[in-house]
């Protein structure tokens, strides 16, 4: 089974603090993603990475940065946390090795990290 592990399930941080959210996957997937989920807004992509040391901005990258030094690990960094970054953060991974027309790439999610910024 694919396993995507997020290091922290629940965090409470103060405004202005630097926050690190860590994610590890064990399936040798090339692609890794960070989303946030907010009620009524669905899953919004923050950043993704398709290779080590590569990163691409998603839909809402402002206030966030990422780091991918190893294939299995993808970190989300909030440089200076703000209250509007209170949310559920979801890490995910996928392979690039689907079979066209038969089996596409499936994205697998971690359990999520609930971040509250006070």
């Amino acid at each position: 089974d694919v396993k995507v592990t997020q290091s922290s399930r629940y965090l409470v941080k103060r405004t202005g603090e630097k926050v690190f959210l860590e994610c590890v996957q064990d399936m040798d997937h090339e692609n890794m993603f960070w989303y946030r989920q907010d009620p009524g807004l669905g899953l919004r992509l923050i950043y993704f990475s398709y290779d080590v040391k590569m990163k691409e901005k998603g839909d809402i990258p402002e206030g966030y940065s990422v780091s991918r030094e190893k294939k299995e690990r993808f970190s989300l960094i909030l440089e200076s946390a703000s209250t509007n970054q209170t949310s559920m953060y979801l890490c995910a991974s996928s392979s690039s090795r689907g079979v066209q027309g038969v089996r596409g790439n499936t994205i697998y999610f971690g359990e999520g990290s609930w971040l509250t910024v006070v």
Partner: protein
Amino acid sequence: DQQVKQNSPSLSVQEGRISILNCDYTNSMFDYFLWYKKYPAEGPTFLISISSIKDKNEDGRFTVFLNKSAKHLSLHIVPSQPGDSAVYFCAASEWSGNQFYFGTGTSLTVIP
């Protein structure tokens, strides 16, 4: 611009009846579609998928239908069970790309 849309934020169904969740997309390049189920305080879990070369895929109580001309897909759950109560997200991707585009989700409540 939202490329994948789930226009019904919520749906209530009696236990044992059919649940039908709908999803529309705008990008004709999408050729792979997925449904995810999400319980509160948990990450989404993969439910079922369909490739654009098919119009139907079935897995137990779950069936996904794809209408490419209408750019529409639906998830049917028969019979619905209380444990199916969750938020359901549809997603789409292109074969050539590595990104996934999600709808905003439909919250399904199955009433015992």
